[in-house]
């Protein structure tokens, strides 16, 4: 599976999480006693761990896991927030940032050495005496600094394999390698241009194999006054210095000879690898000059490719999209109004123009809407890999089934839904499914089944994660909850199952017997619940002991334009979302039966309750209506149905979803919002889910 399409998302999210960790650690330093902050940092680290593991960045996942261990002790009050602890944590963040920028550049997190920091974290967790502060600081600052201590001859720059090889080979050929630090004068305005001139001048006398900052950053003037470059040349130090100083506005050029005798073996090895990698040794022998540069240009090319891939899409601020959609909504209202005016006036030219405009705006509308709508596939696709890796780590056999990945959700929801789903899937596989041997003993198939299903229903999108594992052990949860003091023993027994399952979402609650890399600290589910609720959704748990568990996430469709059926009851007009409607029908009054005072009708062999909207909404009526037949709209919620009785159907129409205003939002029964009709009047939009119990 191609992970590339998620890399960008991963990078963006990781950046946010690292930023959050950094900020919160700073807060924590100010208020060392605040457990809330520790919790926030912990959650960020936890999420980061999950994401890194999903993407296959093991070093990152490993480091965050160790970090989490330390943080877990902190929030349980077993580890005090001392300056030493904070140093190590900040060191972790630095390394993570380094790893992330490496992932952005080269797609791997493997080169940074995490061992010293991991050891420090382990020391913290096990409560052993701390490493001396000096040693603690070194790996913390950056991996480059850590390597600098290995060799005195190193000049504090990290060379990758290609670069080391080039350095090595060029030295054998009598080239000199210089580290040149160029400082521009304070008066220099066009720094990027000057940097270019410096590069240009040096490239005439040799080859630049590395620069810091990178060339792209230099071109974008992302540097202060100084930049560094590594030059391979036959010229001597003086000539090199003069070349630099001859360029105007260069204040100073300092030159150090680069000695690369470090770790010959490793370099040689690397050289072999490079030689092997460059299968067709392009111009290796014919041209000395080229030989030295070809690997360098290759890396440059591959970097360019990466850059281009990232450049294909444009990230747009979601607020701007909201403005666009709001403006467009206004246009749709006017369009409807124009259509009715045109048909009233009957002017042929006007009608044609309006029709044309309608067509264009319909196209425009579908584009505007699709900008925001993304199939859940973009989130779901990264799961199979994660599930496989997880199953392998846990020695479990899992058959992973995804259905409904074409279901579309608003972009804002998509962005947020990834983390909770990761948590729930991990939870299902780690806690839900049993080991193959246990399953066999129970007479189940050794391979467990985990299903991830998405579907639309009414105004909502449902995402369900179900497994055929052991189910939730009610007694175990109760015991744990009582142990943790979440509930007291007396109330425990009388709690209904649903409420017992709800305890799983309690902060700091976990039924796993031992902490695993996967889940088991009870952070997951509490984060899941908070996240889903901030999205305006709900999480439900259904479980049968021994048979399996199902988590259902109900999310609102944050669409702002929907297809609706307009109906009239007495003098009032209501809009019913088309997504809720199965069909409309006309039934004879004599076909209406009563079951326990509830009016019902027969709909294709099913007994469907009849709701009189007139009564549900207390709609005033001046004259009583006495008809032989009733108009009904049959709506559904999941697999439940209801027949809504209305006076007449006005027709199907696209309506723009508007809130009822902050004053009323959330307090009105069975009304999800409103819309403005072509005549300027407001019609209410029914929430059929609330009508069906």
């Amino acid at each position, binding site marked *: 599976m191609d992970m590339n399409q998620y890399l960008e998302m991963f990078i963006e999210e990781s950046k946010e999480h690292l930023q959050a960790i950094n900020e919160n650690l700073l807060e924590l330093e100010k208020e060392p006693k605040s457990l809330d902050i520790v919790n926030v940092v912990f959650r960020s680290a936890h999420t980061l761990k999950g994401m890194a593991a999903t993407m296959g960045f093991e070093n990152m996942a490993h480091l965050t896991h160790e970090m989490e261990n330390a943080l877990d002790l902190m929030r349980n009050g077993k580890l005090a927030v001392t300056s030493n602890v904070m140093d190590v944590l900040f060191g972790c963040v630095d390394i993570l940032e380094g790893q992330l920028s490496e992932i952005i550049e080269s797609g791997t997190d493997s080169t940074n050495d995490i061992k010293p920091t991991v050891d420090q974290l382990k020391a913290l967790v096990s409560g052993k005496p701390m490493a001396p502060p000096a040693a603690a600081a070194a790996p913390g600052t950056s991996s480059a600094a850590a390597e600098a201590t290995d060799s005195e001859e190193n000049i504090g720059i990290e060379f990758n394999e290609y670069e080391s090889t080039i350095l090595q080979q060029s030295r054998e050929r009598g080239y000199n390698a210089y580290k040149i630090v160029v400082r521009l004068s304070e008066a220099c305005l066009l720094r990027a241009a000057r940097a270019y001139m410096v590069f240009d001048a040096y490239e005439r006398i040799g080859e630049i194999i590395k620069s810091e900052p990178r060339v792209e950053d230099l071109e974008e003037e992302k540097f202060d006054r100084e930049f560094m470059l590594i030059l391979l040349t036959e010229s001597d130090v003086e000539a090199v210095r003069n070349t630099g100083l001859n360029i105007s506005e260069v204040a100073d050029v300092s030159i150090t000879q680069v000695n690369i005798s470090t770790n010959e073996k490793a370099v040689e090895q690397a050289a072999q690898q490079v030689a092997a990698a460059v299968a067709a040794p392009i111009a290796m022998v014919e041209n000395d000059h080229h030989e030295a540069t070809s690997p360098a240009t290759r890396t440059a090319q591959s970097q360019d490719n990466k850059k281009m891939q990232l450049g294909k899409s444009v990230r747009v601020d979601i607020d701007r999209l909201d403005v666009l959609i709001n403006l467009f909504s*206004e246009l749709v*209202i006017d369009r409807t109004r124009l259509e009715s005016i045109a048909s009233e006036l009957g002017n042929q030219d006007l009608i044609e123009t309006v029709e044309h405009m309608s067509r264009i705006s319909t196209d425009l509308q579908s584009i505007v809407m699709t900008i925001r709508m993304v199939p859940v596939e973009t989130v779901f696709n990264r799961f199979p890999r994660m599930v496989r890796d997880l199953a392998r780590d846990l020695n479990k056999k899992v058959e992973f089934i995804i259905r409904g990945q074409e279901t579309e959700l608003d972009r804002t929801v998509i962005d947020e839904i990834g983390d909770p789903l990761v948590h729930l899937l991990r939870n299902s596989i780690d806690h839900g499914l049993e080991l193959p041997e246990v399953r066999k003993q129970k007479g189940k198939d050794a391979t467990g089944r985990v299903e991830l299903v998405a579907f639309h229903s009414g105004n909502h999108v449902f995402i369900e994660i179900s497994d055929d594992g052991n189910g939730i052990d009610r007694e175990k949860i109760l015991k744990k909850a009582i142990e943790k003091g979440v509930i007291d023993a007396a109330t425990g027994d009388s709690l209904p199952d649903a409420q017992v399952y709800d305890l799983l979402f309690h902060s700091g609650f976990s039924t796993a017997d031992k902490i695993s890399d996967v889940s088991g600290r009870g952070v997951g589910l509490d984060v899941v619940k908070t996240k889903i609720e901030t999205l305006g959704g709900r999480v439900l748990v259904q479980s049968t002991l021994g048979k399996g568990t199902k988590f259902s996430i109900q999310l609102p469709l944050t669409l702002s334009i929907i297809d609706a059926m307009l109906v009239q009851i007495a003098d*009032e007009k209501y809009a019913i979302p088309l997504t809720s409607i199965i069909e409309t029908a006309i039934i004879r009054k004599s076909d209406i039966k009563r079951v326990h005072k509830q009016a019902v009708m027969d709909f294709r062999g099913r007994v469907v309750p009849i709701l009189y909207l007139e009564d*549900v*909404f*207390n*709609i005033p009526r001046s004259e009583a209506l006495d008809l032989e037949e009733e108009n009904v709209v049959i709506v559904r919620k999941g697999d439940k149905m209801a027949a809504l009785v209305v006076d007449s159907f006005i027709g199907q129409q696209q309506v723009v979803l*508007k*809130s*009822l*205003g*902050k*004053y*009323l939002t*959330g*307090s*009105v*029964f*069975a*009304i999800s919002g*409103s819309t*403005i009709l072509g005549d*300027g*009047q*407001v*019609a*209410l939009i029914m929430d059929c889910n609330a009508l069906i119990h």
Partner: protein
Amino acid sequence: MLEHKDTVEEIKVIVFRLNDEEYGVEVSQVRSIEKMQNITRVPRTPEFVKGVINLRGVVTPIVNLKTRFNLGEEQYTDATRIIIVAVEDMEVGLIVDAANDVIDIPVNTIEQPPAVVGGIKATYLRGVAKLNDRLLIMLNLDKVLSPEEIQAMSSMER
């Protein structure tokens, strides 16, 4: 006018009428004053919530102040107005019998309200301003339009 400001702080107030009493809300809280128009009823809300209107593309809830304070039957005349007020970022329209005056009142003329004024509890009032021969009841819109209040009321209705 300006000279007065140097001595006493003044606030600009929109004066409206419910029955025969005069009330005031600060101009800074008023977005616009609209003529009476067709209101779409919102079912199963407290009686004082008359419904919603289309206010230039924004669906705005409408409250009848007389019903809100149990000040008698609503009677719509040509003078009836809807005052659109904003409390924080929430906009609500208030139906009043008439709104036709903007005056400056010195802050120091506003006195603490007695427990009940014209049937309105003191919690909903900011104070009473005495101006020559006029008595102006200043409303505390934050309290009158608090969302907790409507939620409590609508759950009672059900």
